[in-house]
């Protein structure tokens, strides 16, 4: 694992989740999109035109989000459906939501006890970049940043309990 990761006021057990989160996301892209994610250059940024979110409830409460630009979201859809990029239409949100859903499911299945004790919400996708995400509490978060076909995707797990 060689991505740029960030622990945002998370405790040590949460820090141990970073490689698992990264592995979970990498596996989704390898198995379902047929591509390898790579490590970004330090300081790489993106304009998050698409944000997919899946809530977690139970033994782990929180929110997993995946942010990327529109071109990355369209290319993911193209690869998932096996169609040319110019044939991709309104199914982009559906595709990105499924990527987020599979990443969340794959992540919780890698942590002892969470597969049984943690439920996932249906995915929600926000389009546009001019928004602020407010959490109920001053919650910690872990973040994984990876490159998909040269474009940055940011995966954040906000942890409420």
């Amino acid at each position, binding site marked *: 694992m060689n991505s740029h990761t960030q622990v945002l006021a998370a405790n040590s057990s949460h820090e141990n989740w970073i490689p698992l989160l990264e592995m979970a996301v990498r596996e989704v892209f390898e198995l379902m999109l047929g591509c390898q994610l790579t490590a970004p250059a330090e300081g790489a940024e993106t304009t998050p035109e698409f944000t997919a979110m899946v809530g977690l409830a139970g033994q782990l409460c929180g929110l997993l989000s995946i942010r990327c630009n529109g071109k990355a979201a369209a290319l993911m859809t193209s690869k998932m*459906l096996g169609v040319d990029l110019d044939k991709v239409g309104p199914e982009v949100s559906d595709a990105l939501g499924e990527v987020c859903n599979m990443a*969340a499911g794959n992540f919780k299945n890698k942590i002892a006890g969470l*597969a049984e004790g943690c439920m996932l919400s249906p995915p929600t996708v926000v389009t546009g970049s001019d928004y602020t995400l407010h959490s109920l509490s001053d919650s910690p978060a872990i973040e994984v940043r990876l490159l998909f076909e040269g474009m940055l995707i940011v995966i954040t797990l906000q942890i409420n309990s």
Partner: protein
Amino acid sequence: MAFRQIQLMPIRALIIDDSSVMRKIVERSLRQAGIDLAPVLEAGNGAEALVVLQENQVDLILCDVNMPVMDGLEFIKQLPGVPNAKDVPVVMITTEGSESHVVQALSSGARGYIRKPFTPEQVREHVVPVLAGKS
């Protein structure tokens, strides 16, 4: 291979998932797994699927677990009430990968269980024995 010898007709499959993208991925994975498919039927949840099955005969059902309106487990429970579908094998495809979910699905009548994310090879491993009546 035994499966190729017994598959004389294209398989009539019903894919149930609230994500249209995931329905397409499952269909593509079945084809990539070497399964000869007739035109595939689709439904967005268990209730829609029961309606589809009233009017169509299928050989195989692939079903998500978590869906709005009627989830996959409730769909399996109601399937015996559909005369021309009560013996059709159901394979669950879901992100919920815990042992209890697998046990619950299998005890409800599912014949197979595939965890997302998956490869066409994994689809083949789980679906071919079901179609061959070995699971």
